[in-house]
């Protein structure tokens, strides 16, 4: 199997240019930026809290969709051919409490952000979206209620034998999956493969409107998953463990309440971005495009890209954001070295980006 070629922009290793860049997060946008910058001769160091680079491509999306070897080989090429240094198990601390996000229990080392800024010529934050949205219904904190990421992450992560990582016990139990994105589909798939007695798949709209597409749902049905559409979870029953899930289903004769006899509930209803120091970095302004340099945060020489900036999205958008951000970072360092930053005070780089148009 051929590797993903993160260094696709150059055909041979570049001549070192004597500058170093630190990239926080080794997901799709981080690795794309790494490839871009190492092609320009930057010494790139990548920090990631997980035991292996790849981010959600490796730990969130099941292996039958994205082959693990493709990512592994691509990362190895970055190390060997482009001289990129990967620091795994390392978290750059941190706006929220530790163990707040998925995958935090892997980190063995915590580095301060201030030291990073001093150590490197520039930093790029590509920390993605690792905090799951909550349902906001009673009983949500019972053991046996998972988010999509909480459910999927350990299935991949358990291969790297960290303590505290346990695959959810599904065998013989009934499972309710809420949501109809691709991660919900993956949860339902995994639940069937882990031997669930019964899988209910709930969505608030119809199969035709599902973000994952009706085709995926058809395939799940063939696997024996029961599809319940126009369903809203109302309450999770039980005291010390999940005993059932009460839902309201809107049908032709109005709204009807049903109770599903499930022992596990997985709410795969999306994630939110988890950038460190969102406030100090002024990320809200970057999102709106109110910055004087594309993707630059309130701290000079700290850039941001990928899901951390624009929220959960597809791999392609993260890659594009990482590449553009890396280009912007390299441009900025060059102009700064020549002391010509003023020349670009009112540049229109930011206004050009689709979705980040000023005043739009």
């Amino acid at each position, binding site marked *: 199997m051929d590797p*993903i070629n993160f260094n*696709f*922009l150059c055909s041979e290793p570049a001549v070192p240019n004597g500058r170093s860049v630190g990239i926080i997060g080794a997901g799709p946008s981080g690795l794309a930026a790494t490839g871009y910058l190492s092609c320009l001769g930057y010494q790139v160091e990548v920090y990631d809290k997980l035991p292996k680079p790849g981010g959600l491509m490796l730990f969130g999306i099941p292996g039958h969709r994205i082959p693990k070897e493709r990512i592994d080989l691509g990362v190895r090429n970055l190390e060997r051919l482009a001289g990129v240094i990967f620091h795994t198990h390392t978290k750059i601390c941190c706006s929220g409490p530790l163990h707040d996000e998925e995958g935090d229990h892997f980190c063995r080392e915590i580095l301060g952000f201030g030291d990073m800024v001093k150590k490197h010529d520039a930093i790029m934050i590509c920390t993605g979206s690792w905090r799951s949205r909550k349902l906001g219904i009673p009983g949500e904190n019972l053991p046996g209620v998972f988010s999509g990421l909480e459910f999927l992450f350990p299935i991949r992560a358990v291969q790297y034998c960290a303590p505290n990582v346990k695959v959810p016990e599904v065998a013989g139990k009934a499972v309710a999956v809420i949501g109809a994105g691709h991660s919900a589909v993956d949860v339902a798939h995994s639940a069937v493969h882990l031997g669930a007695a019964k899988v209910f798949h709930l969505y608030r709209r119809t199969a035709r409107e*599902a973000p994952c597409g009706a085709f995926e749902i058809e395939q799940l049905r063939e696997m024996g998953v029961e599809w319940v559409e126009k369903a809203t979870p109302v309450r999770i029953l039980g005291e010390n463990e999940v005993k059932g899930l009460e839902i309201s289903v809107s049908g032709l004769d109005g709204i009807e309440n049903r109770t599903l006899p499930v022992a596990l509930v997985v709410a795969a209803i999306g994630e939110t971005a988890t950038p460190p120091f969102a406030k100090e970095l002024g990320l809200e302004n970057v999102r709106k495009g109110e910055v004087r340099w594309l993707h630059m945060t309130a701290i000079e020489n700290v850039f941001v890209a990928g899901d951390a900036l624009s929220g959960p999205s597809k*791999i*392609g958008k993260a890659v594009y954001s990482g590449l553009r951000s890396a280009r912007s970072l390299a441009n900025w360092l060059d102009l700064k070295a020549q002391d010509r930053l003023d020349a670009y005070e009112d540049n229109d780089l930011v206004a050009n980006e689709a979705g980040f148009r000023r005043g739009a």
Partner: protein
Amino acid sequence: MSGRKTLYIDYSLCIGCETCEFVCRFTNDTSRIHMTRTADGVMVPLYCRHCDNPKCANACPRGALKRDRDGAVILQPMLCRGCQTKNCILACPHAAMFETDRGVMIAKCDLCAQRRQMGMGPACVEMCPCGAVMYVDRDEIPKLETEKSRLALQKVLDHLKLPGKN
């Protein structure tokens, strides 16, 4: 046509992540491969097959579409006048000619001609996370096809065909 390379996408491996589209957009400013969604919700990239008998080239009144040394069907912007007939767009059975808002207002895949000059492969192939996009010899394609990929391709072609034509 043997010994000539082309792009091949195994639709059954594609997860619709749009990496090919965005990498192409980064490399070429305007993307020449586009993600679309079929009526039953399968995400598929539309791409140029660099056909043996390219219908776009036959339809072009000015002969602006030509095959290059490596077998890629290439749009020559100096000959294309961006005509209003848009014959090439209509002629392509794979919906792989795209209207844009710049230049001659037509974009099509040239198998990364500029990158090939420097001995590199098409960018979308290099970055596809799933290995679904391949740069292969035309003759190899039948060997790469699986039952699943044929089924997925049929779904896509059914989606693309003109209404009422079977």
